[in-house]
């Protein structure tokens, strides 16, 4: 094991002039990158900058349109992931490349490229996972595992191939702060063994902590290289985005009114085998405040959203109370008519129909709340398309949605612009209650800032806003109070000022299930409420 000193290691990987074109989009434009032996090299860039495209080419999942890759000094063609593995390149994917219906061992076996004896493999898996402090049960079904455990599988199966270069794509976006710390220790140890790590992230603090060199991508082009330890988070951010991002303003924090949304001991069974059950969730959301719901992915966020929106209805009318009216038995349209608005996590396929135009997608969410405006002839319900288009145009202007054409399909817009439209579609109604799941997931920095500001402004104007988000920075940026969702249960919300990353991290790892000895959950559910 060599204890490498930065930049003295020889060049392991050199990428020269790589370009990748999808249709008319240049995802990578003449990109250069070099990674030395024994360093942790950061690849920085905001959503859509082309980071994932670049590393997929290094791992052989995509083929470059032009340009060359040199590995240990000689030019190579990486035709497939197995070719990359043979060279010694391993990858941990952002959206894990795992199989829910298969066991941990089977998942690992699939990435090894040749036939392996399963017993032998289970043995190796155990020893590697012990050595690096990444505990795994080889016989467990992946579908039953938590996100953190899934990432461990990805890392272990990568390590089993003894790679010289490990690529990690946004590895901490799904981890609690404590889990992230453990990951950093593992990565530092791997570096000290002489391995190289290409670390992709848009989280600047961790890049500053971990990496000795950084390459920055913007709109598919390399716009700079630096030593992140010598930069500030702000200077890195401006390099990444290329412009100053408006800082989100919050003026009237603490100025709250009556309860507009109440959840009263809300419990829901799991709808599918791999879904999460909601356990005894109670929360009061008041006029004028933003409550942030933090949590690691897969802990019941989408189930909570569906339960509040009425996509899944309750059996007890008082489980969900909107604007003082019991709404537990009402469907989503009726809840909208009570003054609530909803923005789901997935834009294409949930919040919008991809092949529908923007105006049709406006009608999707507003056909009942704006019945008088959009529908004619009573029961026949003739659609007044002209009225829908006029309002769609107004929303596009209000939210500064960039698009081509008069009324394009939802799928033709970038993530940020579509999200601005979807947010605008609900804001335009001036809802009393707004529930948003992952408001800026996969959205560029400019659009994200605008969306966050709009949510705060809505609260300032006297509405109640609930933001469910995995992004802790976002939670801290906009919330007045913060609660943590974990294993289908919700912690008691506390004022944002009193919360730290550490105690949120503790709550994220907590289990809310009432245990048999009757001890209260670690997060302290508001179980005593009537």
């Amino acid at each position, binding site marked *: 094991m060599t204890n490498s000193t930065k930049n003295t290691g020889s060049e392991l990987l050199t990428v020269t002039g790589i370009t990748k074109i*999808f249709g008319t989009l240049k995802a990578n434009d003449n990109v250069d990158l070099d990674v030395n032996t024994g360093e942790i090299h950061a690849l920085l860039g905001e959503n859509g900058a082309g980071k994932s495209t670049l590393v997929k080419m290094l791992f052989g*999942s995509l*083929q470059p349109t032009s340009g060359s890759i040199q590995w240990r000094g000689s030019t190579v063609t990486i035709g497939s*992931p*197995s070719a990359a593995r043979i060279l010694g390149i391993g990858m941990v994917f952002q959206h894990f490349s795992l199989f*829910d219906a298969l066991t941990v061992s089977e998942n690992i076996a*699939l990435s090894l490229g040749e036939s392996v004896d399963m017993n032998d493999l289970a043995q190796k898996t155990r020893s590697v996972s012990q050595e690096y402090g990444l505990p795994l049960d080889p016989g467990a079904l992946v579908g039953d595992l938590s996100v953190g455990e899934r990432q461990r599988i990805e890392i272990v199966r990568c390590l089993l191939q003894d790679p010289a270069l490990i690529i990690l794509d946004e590895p901490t976006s799904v981890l609690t702060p404590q889990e992230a710390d453990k990951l950093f220790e593992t990565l530092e140890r791997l570096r000290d063994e002489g391995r190289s790590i290409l670390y992709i992230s848009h989280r600047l603090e961790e890049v500053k902590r971990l990496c000795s060199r950084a390459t920055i991508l913007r709109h598919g082009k390399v716009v700079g290289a630096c030593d992140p330890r010598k930069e500030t988070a702000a200077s890195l951010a401006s390099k990444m985005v290329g412009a100053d991002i408006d800082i989100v303003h919050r003026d009237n924090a603490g100025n709250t009114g009556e309860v507009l949304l109440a959840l009263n001991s809300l419990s829901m069974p799991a709808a599918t085998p791999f879904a999460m059950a909601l356990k005894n969730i109670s929360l009061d959301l008041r006029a004028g405040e933003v409550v942030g719901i933090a949590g690691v992915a897969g802990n019941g966020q989408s189930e909570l959203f569906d339960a509040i929106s009425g996509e899944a209805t309750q059996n007890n009318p008082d489980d969900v109370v909107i604007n003082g009216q019991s709404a537990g038995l009402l469907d989503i349209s009726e809840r909208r008519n009570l003054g609530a608005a909803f923005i789901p996590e997935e834009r294409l396929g949930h919040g919008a129909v991809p092949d529908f135009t923007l105006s049709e997608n406006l009608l999707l969410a507003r056909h009942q709340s704006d019945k008088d405006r959009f529908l004619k002839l009573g029961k026949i319900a003739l659609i007044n398309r002209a009225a829908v288009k006029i309002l769609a145009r107004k929303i596009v202007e209000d939210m500064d949605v960039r698009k081509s054409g008069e009324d394009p399909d939802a799928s033709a817009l970038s993530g940020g612009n579509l999200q601005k439209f979807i947010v605008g579609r609900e804001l335009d109604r001036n809802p009393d209650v707004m529930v948003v799941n992952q408001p800026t997931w996969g959205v560029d920095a400019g659009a994200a800032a605008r969306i966050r500001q709009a949510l705060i402004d809505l609260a300032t104007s006297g509405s109640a806003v609930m933001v469910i988000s995995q992004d802790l920075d976002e939670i801290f940026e906009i919330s007045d109070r913060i609660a943590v969702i974990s294993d289908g249960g919700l912690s008691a919300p506390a004022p944002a000022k009193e919360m730290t990353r550490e105690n949120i991290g503790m709550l994220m790892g907590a289990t809310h299930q009432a245990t048999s000895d009757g001890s209260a959950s670690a997060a302290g559910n508001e179980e005593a409420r009537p």
Partner: protein
Amino acid sequence: MDLVVIVSVIISVCAASTPLLLAATGELVVERSGVLNLGVEGMMIIGAVTGFAMAQVTGNPYLGALAAIAAGAFFSLLFAFLTLSLATNQVATGLALTILGLGLSGMIGEGFVGQPGIKMEAVNIPFLTDIPVVGKLLFGQDVIFYSSLILVAAVSWFLFRTRAGLMLRSVGDNPQSAHALGIPVIRTRYLAVLFGGACSGLAGAHLSLVYVPQWVEGMTAGRGWIALALVVFASWRPARVLVGAYLFGAVTIAQFHAQALGIPIPAQFLTSLPYLATIFVLVLIARNRRMTLINTPASLSQPFVPDR
């Protein structure tokens, strides 16, 4: 009922079950790879007509069976090209395959209608076949019957004991992940569809060379669809397909015997029995939602277009 009658009933159940078993086992492999091919009925009838025609021309039913396998596989290629290379809707394309298969077989088989068929004879192993009772059962049936049993065992072994089988299941569970790991999704699915086509072709040959043996237009009479239902019934497990196929075979034979015994129920009602049983079984299985959801290949009938 004496023993001889019982044995002959069991053998007729085997004969009725074999085409269902073959077609369902093939379709199981296809669906495990994430592809829903509703063209089983069409591939089966193409197999039936090709097998019959080849046997008539060459006088050899075994060549007929081989031709049926090839024809079924070749015919399924049409479905594979559309759904895998052109990413068309699998449900609609499968229907198209069935409609085309029924039409094409009618045209090919027109000259063979009413001709006496060449039956694939049961094997006869000296001594073994002559053992009383079990001899005929175990050692006195046709080759396709034995193939069907070997096939179920082989498919079970392949899916759960080999690396290629693991790859096939991974493609059916999550093609995006499989693609990211470098597993050739489209090629795997092509091979699975071809295998399913070959099995359906052989199933059809069993109808026109063993079970009936004649060429009658539309002679598959919904067996391809029943095979599809069997895969759901079996929750995508080969051993359960075996059980399901024999249950249906038994229902079919029971209905024949009821007709022969002159039970005062109209023949048409008895003929409807296997179809009604299929509906009943589907309802029974669907009520256990959890089991269905866990076992259904997660990407079933979702088109996959790799980015490159």
